[in-house]
């Protein structure tokens, strides 16, 4: 297998490099080759030893951290469909039905995303960066399973092109590309992104609302937690994730597993995740202390805010995107805290946008360079000048 592949790349090399016939498509050839074979050039400049971590490994760890969320998302999509159909399916059936809805989203996202990447790489003549490996999986996980595939294609196109490539590609983007794509769909096609879209293959069965927990409000004097319980969103269910929602966001548990993998391997910066959770907890406690609003999310308390909606997914996988987050440690704390804060504020103060975390992260992405700038100014002032 290895020798065959090696032979294939050795044989095709003259076509794609130097004065080869398909020289223009060298980035595509190169990306395929380096996917199979880790490049191992000799170091020519000091230092002469280098760490083994490279961007491919970096992104692969993120993919690894996303696997629990992805597999649970596939299963849960099938499980919700079974409830929607009013039937009781086996685990395998749920998984297969889920895969039938979710896999096309992932495949379309990767295919269209890579098509754009290839196009830009060929035109610009640079190598294909690994960023899309993560973006291409993150993006479909933020979508409802019922979304039309053409919208997935449109969303990932917007995310990759406007969110990333116009700035110069991976490493130079201001906003998180996956969230940019989602925000584009959210505002352009609200019908596919909100309301009664969260359960795939739903037939009209009484008692199945198909709305997410965040859109629940208490009626009259009923408290929000009681209303959530009535609607089938107990804290335990929100934590394990057997509720309707975007494919990847429902399970707080799986998100926490992913966050743990990212923090232990130090691929994601723990300051953002810890800061974000702290910001959310503190803000939701303060909001809870304000009198009134027993029937709305302002009175839900930190645990419900944490487990419902996409907060944990966003803070673990989206906010920790190093490119669009601040590059300084104090900046990362502030960034995380502010995301937690804005998530609660948007959820409580603006019921039109129930899912606050997407806007909170994009909003803070814009401020990340400013945070860095302030931190750098402060740090410079603390150094003994050396000019």
């Amino acid at each position, binding site marked *: 297998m*290895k020798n065959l592949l090696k032979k294939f790349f050795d044989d095709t090399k003259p076509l794609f490099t130097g004065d080869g016939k398909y020289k223009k498509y060298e980035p595509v050839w190169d990306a395929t080759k380096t996917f199979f*074979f880790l490049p191992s050039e000799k*170091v020519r400049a000091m230092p002469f030893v280098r760490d083994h971590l490279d961007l491919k490994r970096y992104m692969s760890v993120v993919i690894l951290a996303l696997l629990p969320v992805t597999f649970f998302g596939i299963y849960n999509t099938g499980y919700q469909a079974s409830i929607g159909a009013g039937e009781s399916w086996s685990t395998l059936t749920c998984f297969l039905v889920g895969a039938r809805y979710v896999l096309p989203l992932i495949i379309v996202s990767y295919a269209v995303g890579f098509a754009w990447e290839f196009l830009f790489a060929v035109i610009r003549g640079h190598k294909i960066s690994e960023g899309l490996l993560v973006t291409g999986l993150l993006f479909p996980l933020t979508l409802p399973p019922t979304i039309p595939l053409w919208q997935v294609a449109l969303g990932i196109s917007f995310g990759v092109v406007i969110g990333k490539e116009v700035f110069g590609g991976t490493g130079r983007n201001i906003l998180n590309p996956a969230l940019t794509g989602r925000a584009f769909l959210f505002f352009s096609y609200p019908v596919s992104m909100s309301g009664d879209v969260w359960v795939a293959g739903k037939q009209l069965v009484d008692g199945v609302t198909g709305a997410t927990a965040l859109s629940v409000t208490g009626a009259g004097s009923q408290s929000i937690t009681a209303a959530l319980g009535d609607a089938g969103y107990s804290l335990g269910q929100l934590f394990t994730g057997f509720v309707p929602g975007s494919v990847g966001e429902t399970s707080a548990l799986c998100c926490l597993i992913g966050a743990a993998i990212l923090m232990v391997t130090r691929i994601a910066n723990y300051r953002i995740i810890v800061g974000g959770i702290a910001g959310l907890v503190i803000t939701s406690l303060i909001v809870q202390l304000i009198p009134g609003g027993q029937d709305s999310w302002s009175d839900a308390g930190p645990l419900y805010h944490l487990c419902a909606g996409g907060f944990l997914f966003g803070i673990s996988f989206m906010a920790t995107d190093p490119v669009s987050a601040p590059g300084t440690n104090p900046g990362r704390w502030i960034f995380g805290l502010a995301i937690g804060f804005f998530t609660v504020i948007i959820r409580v103060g603006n019921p039109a946008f129930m899912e606050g975390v997407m806007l909170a992260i994009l909003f803070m992405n814009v401020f990340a360079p400013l945070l860095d700038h302030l931190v750098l100014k402060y740090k410079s002032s603390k150094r003994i000048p050396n000019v």
Partner: protein
Amino acid sequence: MKTLRISRGFNLDVAEQPDLSCVHLALPPSLGCCAGDIPYIRPKLLVKEGQRVKTGETLFTDKRDTTIQYVSPGTGLVETVVYGARRRLMEVVIATEAEDEYVEYDPVDLNGITGMPRDALVSTLKKGGLWQGLRQFPALDFADPDHSPAMIIVVMDGNDLFSPRPDIILKDNITAFEAGMAILRQFSDRLAVVCRESSLEGVRTIGSSVADQITHTAPDIYPAWNPGAVLYQIKQEVAENTAWCVHLDHLIMMGRFLLSGRYPVDKIVTVTRPGEHPPHMRARQGMPLSALVEKMPENSIVTTGRFNGRVLEEDAHIGFFENTINIIEAGPGEELFGFVRPGLDKPTVSSSFLSSLFKRPAKMDCTLHGEARACINCSYCERICPNDLMPSFIMKALHADELEDALALGLMDCCRCGLCSFTCPSKIELTRILSDAMDAYYKDK
């Protein structure tokens, strides 16, 4: 004795520690005076091919200051003058004669050094080709004799993890060390003598008089003992930015030169190679690589410091500032699906390979392990920088031509240890970018 605290740096275990015995190497057929490892030099050659030179005779000077002289490490005919790219002088090679004939100077005793006028001391050291052992921060050019440094840092350990141990360099040279310290006291009241923790015991055994003069110990985390890292740790005011530093072997050379009136021709050299523990070697200055390393493993490179040295070609000679040779093998070649392997045998300072779970000696090779990409802001470089720099932000400031910003972020505090490039997952040559910018700024100033 103070302990330097350094939390950042490289503390992987590398199993190439040279043996602590010391062998004496015979005089090789050729010796070289190397110009390739001298920073900022604009050499002016003073000899011709075929000319006979004595040991200690000037071979070339620096056009920027012609009193700085680089002298012959042996006696014999000038065999070849080697030029590099753009006719940069690389080496002057001497075909050695069996007996050394020295350029003789008047010996001075210890009291004489203390009583010597500063100017006379400077000119003697310059004539002897040893003044350039004293380096001046921030760019580490040769020290300006008209400058009174706020502090002189004496570094006992070399640039690499496995540079020669100070006790082996100090053996039989305690008097020369004292003489060297007496020279330094002529230039500054404040001497900081820094020793690695692991070297301290050896120094104590060799002579308590030396051990008593050690002012700081540095932890065994590379590059805690690097002069730039030491300066950053103990620096308290702006005046110290132009401190001087000197390595132990140069200090002893200065002492021996004044005490004997002859150019000291030997130095201790270590060779590290994977899987072996060669002894320390007492070799000549300008020893050819072939005499130090018998057989080279295939597909490997030779450097004079795995993090901050230069590459030595097969016919090269070791330079005045170099005393460590690393043989680094290339990796296993292109691995199938290299990026998803568990990586038990892949040493890393991150935690993204299984190797980070087990504490065992790291096998380092000279491959890049990836391809260059854009900076993704991951802060690995900041996390490892011993001098609290943020190399990625400095790099961006430099790319934007914001030199003032780069300087404010501490560009000139960089000690060129090489760790930022070592750790960068985007394989950006941060050390080279920072180092080039420092050089450009220094030359421009």
